[in-house]
């Protein structure tokens, strides 16, 4: 099991390099001259050429790319083309905001959606089920930024109990994390409901009841462990979307996190900062996927057996 985890951690290296390649290529091909943006319209051609050489932009694409990767493996994220500062400084100050926000959103989504899905399944075709399904459909179809704006209107503008922007205290995290979790929450609820419905009809639930197990234990112990796996999958897959959603949410709520740094950097064509943000996102998503796979194995012995088998072969 540990061997498998280590193997997966090593896989993250080629994945990260792949991400850097794609992002670097996109940034390279994107029209617009970062140096012209940086120096403004009054810059002389000589100055522009000089700056380009100093930043290494005049090198061919592959030279730039390899230089960047080699720098990264020695621990350097490069310097921002725009501010001239080390990228890692800005990146590391932004990471905590995004991490707290995503973890809060993920936790909120899981804590609310799984019981809601279970209740909807247990009370299938009764009012509770309809209420949950309606909520889930609204949650899936509402755009994140719109939900954010509506929440700001309600809690900050009309009720005035929560801050609408910036990060001053723990209160500032409430609205952005609710907004962020909204979509995920709804899709996990739907998944949990349908997988629970399926499991509740399974023969082994009938076996458990025939043994004298109470309905509650049959649902929350026998059924839930089996029915939670699809929800974990959905949470894992959507974690990437969650990170991507941080761009919109951090902009709406003015949170100085990675998402906002990313969108700001893209606007000014600051390739080193953009790539720094993308490397962080790629690594986080990879780690979350690894955690998801480990969770599968912890929950389902059949999946664990597969991993162990795979580990022996290599």
């Amino acid at each position, binding site marked *: 099991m540990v061997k498998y985890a280590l193997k997966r951690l090593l896989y993250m290296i080629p994945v990260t390099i792949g991400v850097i390649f794609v992002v670097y290529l996109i940034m390279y091909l994107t029209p617009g001259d970062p140096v012209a943006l940086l120096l403004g319209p009054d810059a002389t051609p000589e100055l522009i050429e000089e700056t380009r050489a100093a930043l290494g932009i005049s090198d061919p694409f592959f030279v730039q790319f390899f230089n960047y990767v080699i720098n990264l493996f020695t621990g350097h994220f490069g310097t921002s083309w725009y501010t001239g500062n080390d990228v890692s400084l800005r990146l590391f100050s932004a990471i905590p905001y995004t991490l707290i926000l995503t973890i809060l959103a993920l936790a909120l989504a899981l804590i609310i959606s799984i019981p809601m899905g279970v209740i909807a399944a247990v009370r299938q075709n009764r009012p509770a089920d309809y209420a949950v399904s309606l909520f889930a459909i609204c949650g899936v179809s509402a755009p994140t930024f719109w939900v954010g704006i509506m929440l700001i209107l309600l809690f900050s503008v009309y009720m005035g109990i929560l801050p609408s922007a910036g990060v001053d205290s723990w209160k500032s995290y409430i609205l952005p994390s609710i907004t962020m979790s909204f979509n995920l929450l709804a899709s996990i609820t739907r998944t949990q409901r349908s997988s629970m419905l399926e499991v509740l009809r*399974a*023969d*082994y639930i*009938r*076996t*458990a*009841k*025939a*043994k*004298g*197990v*109470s*309905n509650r234990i049959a649902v929350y112990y*026998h059924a839930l*462990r*089996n029915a939670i796996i699809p929800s974990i999958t959905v949470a894992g897959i959507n974690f990437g979307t969650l990170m991507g959603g941080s761009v919109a949410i951090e902009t709406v709520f003015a949170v100085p996190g990675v998402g906002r740094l990313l969108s700001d950097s893209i606007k000014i064509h600051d390739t080193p900062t953009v790539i720094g943000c993308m490397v962080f996102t790629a690594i986080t998503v990879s780690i979350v996927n690894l955690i998801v796979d480990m969770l599968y194995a912890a*929950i*389902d*012995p*059949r999946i664990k*057996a597969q991993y162990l088998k795979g580990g022996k072969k290599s």
Partner: protein
Amino acid sequence: MEEKKITSENEEMLNIKNLVVHYETDEALVKAINGIDLVIKHGKAHGLVGETGAGKTTTALSILNLVPDPPGRIVSGEITLDGEKLIAELPLTDEEREKLKAEGKLPPCAPAKTEREFEHIRGDKVAMIFQDPMTALNPVMTVGDQIAESIRLHQGLDRAAAAERAKEMLELVGIPGIRANEYPHQFSGGMKQRVIISMALACNPRLLIADEPTTALDVTIQAQVLDLMRELRDKFDMALLMITHDLGIIAEMCDEVSVMYAGRIVEHGTLEDIFDNTSHPYTQGLFNSIPNIEDRKSDLKPIRGLMPDPANLPAGCAFCPRCDYATERCAVEKPDKVWLSDTHCVECHLYQQGDTAKKL
């Protein structure tokens, strides 16, 4: 009069009286069980034979009050287990009874025990073995835990003692106790069925319901599992309700047989009554459908047609459309129960009016 009979005969392990179970959906009213009577004496084995969809499993689930609700509903009837009412008819005055009868309705019934009391009965006094061992075990729990769970629930043992007892139960069915820590996917089909049997027997049930316990198994494993069940039944002296569509299993395992068709018991008797004195055309059809070992070239004689849709049963005898002996009367009038001897009864117009001599 009937009431007296039940209370006085406490040698009865199980008494099902006039049980009616429907599945009610928006599209249709599926009449799964339409008034069956079934008595199992202590320590006896009773076979319930019939095609798929005849209502055998629903009968078994009714005893445990586990008919999936919705859509299933026990509409009418009484179930008595070892002298205790599980499902009881609601008390009615004679007037109300007459009124219901006039309206063509059945006397309503309700569980006579709370859900909690049923939980105490399930797995303890009555245990059930299910048809498909591949899906009847929880894939994410070790088999030891699954056996121990029932022991802890009913015998109040602590975790360690229950685990120890679970190992003993596994050894009883021929599985090394050390495998208690393994998961169902690590066992073969036959082994899984053994696990399920050990789970069912863990609390020494007085009545074991075996719902097609060998249908999903290879023929070679079937014989092993049946031998094991017979051996354990002798050891624990429990009553058995054996649900199957295999007359061979009935012949090997049972004392009495009920033949079920479209939610009714069409013929009932001792093993001899049914095998040597087969009366109902449907039972005869079942016997004719068995391959003949002596004459392998002889054609099988399947019963023509299919069982009627239980959502749309014929007005008369349910077997009428497939019966070679059907008369006009069969199509319009439901046959009553006719007793051919003290132990043997049949629901068929051919035997009505005391015309028992008229053999097919």
